């Protein structure tokens, strides 16, 4: 409990230690702490920005996706329509071709028939004339009855 000069020395030490801490210890520590706080704050801000960008990208992506889907649907339906049109066209063309072929065949048949008829007619007329010639050989003069035969031929046509 004795007081002596020690307390004066102790007081000086007190101030020297305080001064030393203020000069050499506190500032670098505070600087490190502040810098780290800033780093963390920056990191958090960057993360938030990244999150926002991601959300934006997602929205944009969804919009693009929806548009693409609609476009794809359009293209598919267009193609279906075009396919249908092509098929219809092909059908019509085929039908027309068929009709044409049938008509040609019919015409052929008709002309063939006509030709056969003509040949037959002339042959029948000849046969009739030959028959009649045989029957009428003697009595009938071919010269006399030629216009009669021509008339018959006319009637058979």
């Amino acid at each position, binding site marked *: *409990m*004795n*007081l*002596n*000069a*020690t*307390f*004066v*020395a*102790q*007081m000086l*030490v*007190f*101030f*020297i*230690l*305080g*001064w*030393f*801490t*203020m000069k*050499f*210890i*506190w*500032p*670098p*520590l*505070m*600087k*490190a*702490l502040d*810098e*780290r706080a*800033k*780093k963390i704050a920056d990191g958090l801000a960057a993360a938030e920005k990244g999150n926002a960008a991601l959300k934006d990208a997602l929205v944009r992506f969804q919009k693009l996706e929806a548009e693409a889907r609609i476009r794809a649907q359009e293209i598919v339906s267009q193609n279906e329509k075009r396919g249908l049109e092509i098929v219809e066209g092909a059908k019509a063309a085929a039908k027309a071709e068929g009709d044409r072929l049938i008509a040609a065949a019919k015409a052929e048949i008709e002309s063939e028939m006509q030709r056969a008829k003509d040949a037959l007619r002339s042959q029948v007329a000849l046969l009739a004339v030959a028959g009649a010639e045989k029957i009428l050989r003697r009595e009938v003069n071919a010269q006399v009855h030629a216009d009669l035969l021509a008339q018959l031929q006319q009637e058979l046509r």
Partner: protein
Amino acid sequence: MASPEHAPNASEYITHHLTHLNTKAQGFIVDMSVLNIDTLFWSLAMGFITCFVLWRVAQRATAGVPGRFQAAIEMLVEMVNDQAKAIVHSAESRLFVAPLALTVFLWITLMNALDLLPVDLPHKIFAWTGLDSFIRYNRIVPTADLNGTFGMSLGVFVLMIYYNIKIKHLGGFIHELFCAPFGNKIWLYPFNLLLNLIEFIAKTVSLAMRLFGNMYAGELLFMLIALLGATATWWGFGMHLVAGAAWAIFHILIILLQAFIFMMLTLVYIGQAHEGH
């Protein structure tokens, strides 16, 4: 040991442990020609360790991921800084006051912690190394010496006066000494001044006495516990072990608590110096 002829009795043992290593024996209760070498040595040593450790950490401090030790120091710094911010409302003053509070806290903690060394260890070491021929006495705990605590509290007192004058200017400070807390009436001046003087003295003395009393009592108790072991009986040995361990564990709390209280009161007193009545 005090005398080589016979083992010291209990009162000689305690007296020996409570005697300072000083420049000359102190006759009066206040004698400014005496210096306690042990108090000065150990407080300087602890102050040096505190500053050196903090300085090393501060030099290597990075803003990146801190190491464990840096993180521990940073926690302390943040704690002190938060307290300083809450108590001292002047950023300019805090540039000095906050670092001071940090150092005071760690310095007092280390000085108090010297109490946990076995009370006879330093003397034994001096005896083994032959240093005891001129280091006859050694009180290792600087905060168990009133000079140690009073020196620090006087430092706080000087800071109180300094900041009072700095913030309120000399005229304002003197005006406050005479006019607060009772009021600006001529017949109240003596009472105001008296109360203010008592307040300053009480703050300074109680700051010193609180720390000194706690550490002195702790030191004395360790000595008494050591006396149990000195009985050289099984009972004394057992009690030395049990009581010594119990008191040492409890003393950890006192060491940190007293250091924290001293730091907080330093901040509070300096903070009050910034505020007008």
